[in-house]
């Protein structure tokens, strides 16, 4: 009995779902710890997003290549070891690239290994799909994650220091809202974004429901 090979085309859809529909932070609420901790400046947010995307792409890529080779019983342990290795690689790479960024991100680089998003992706997607599709998906999820981090980072840096990427945006008379740079600010800004998305979604649902009613009436 010949097995039917999956011949689904690699579509833009796979990439985009990671950014919007299945955004790891805003929709699935994964990987929260770095989201709140390293988004006090836009630069940190960007660095964290890129580092995590790198680990995500490399780890899921390797898992996808080895997916027929790893027995079911030890798969979680294997994924964890693979992810931890790439995180260690990123840790040393960042130290070599920029000590300033390394000091700013601190322990959160190594904490990428505890990011549920990566393990979840490896388990749910990479272990079943071929390499190409896995990489596209990883890039999409990574992009979504980085985008979410940037959403938080820019707002917090703007309100908390009047700057973006260290460039002053507001006039000197702007009194910075320091709390935005501190832990409570992280919680509030993320809650704010979630509120915004929930509100958008509700409006979309209302419109869709109103549209259906109109069509039903029109008949």
């Amino acid at each position, binding site marked *: 009995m010949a097995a039917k090979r999956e011949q689904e085309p690699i579509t833009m859809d796979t990439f985009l779902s990671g950014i919007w529909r299945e955004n790891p932070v805003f929709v699935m609420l994964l990987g929260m710890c770095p989201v709140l901790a390293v988004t*006090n400046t836009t630069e940190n947010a960007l660095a964290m997003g890129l580092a995590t995307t790198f680990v995500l792409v490399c780890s899921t890529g390797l898992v996808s290549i*080895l997916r027929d*080779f*790893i*027995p*079911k*019983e*030890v798969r979680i*342990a*294997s994924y964890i*070891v*693979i992810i*931890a*290795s*790439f995180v*260690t*690689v990123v840790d*040393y*790479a960042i*130290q*070599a690239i*920029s*000590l300033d960024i390394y*000091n700013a991100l601190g322990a959160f680089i190594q904490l990428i290994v505890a990011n549920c998003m990566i393990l979840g992706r490896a388990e749910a997607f990479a272990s079943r799909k071929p390499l190409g599709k896995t990489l596209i998906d990883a890039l999409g999820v990574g992009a979504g994650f980085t985008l979410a981090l940037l959403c938080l980072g820019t707002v917090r840096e703007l309100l*908390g*220091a009047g700057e973006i990427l260290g460039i002053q945006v507001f006039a000197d008379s702007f009194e*910075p809202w*320091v709390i935005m*740079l*501190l832990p409570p600010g992280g919680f509030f800004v993320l809650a704010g974004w979630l509120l915004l998305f929930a509100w958008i979604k509700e409006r979309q649902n209302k419109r869709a429901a109103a549209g259906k009613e109109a069509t039903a009436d029109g008949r």
Partner: protein
Amino acid sequence: MSEAAQSQQVAPTPTSSLRLIGTLGVIALFAGLLVVSVVEWTRPIIAENHERALQQAVFDVIPGATQRRDFVLTDEGPVPKEDAQERGPIIHAGYTEDGALAGVALEASGRGYADVIRILYGYDPSCACIVGMSVLESQETPGLGDRIETDPDFLGSIEGLDASLNEDGTGLKHGIRTVDPGEREDPGDIDGITGATVSAEAIGDMLHRSADERLPQLQGHWSELERNE
């Protein structure tokens, strides 16, 4: 019995332990190789980064310094770091263009408002005073506690701060402490920062503790630091 029913009744055979261990072993081996190669490759780059950062910090706190040598402080006095046999506090000596000793940079740390603060401060033996201070690590509140890094009056009052020793050379003649801004009386007083009292006091406190302990230890050994090859 049809083939489908038969395959439904046969349970999938569990993977052999050998296969499990083998897989984990291969993955561990791969992980090890990957990590080791990256670490080895980046090690010199990282060391260079640290060296550059330290160099910059030392030159920041010792005005006029363009060259640096590190010493380890032992019971017999400072020993060049390359020759040191034992571990001890590090003394960074800064020299001018012509090789004269411009001052030494010492590390100090203590608890601030949020967490531990680490600083590097410069001391010039020719004036027996502190010539500069740079914050290496701090988690102080941005906009409030972190003003210890930027407040001009605070930093200005640290430069030129009297750190001369008392008559028997066992400690500072005037203790170093942070006072309310504008209320300096003794030569060892630092202008504090309104709104960052705890952080500013922490700096004064750690400067005092470090200078009180290290400067007597360096007493009488300054000539050993003079030369710069």
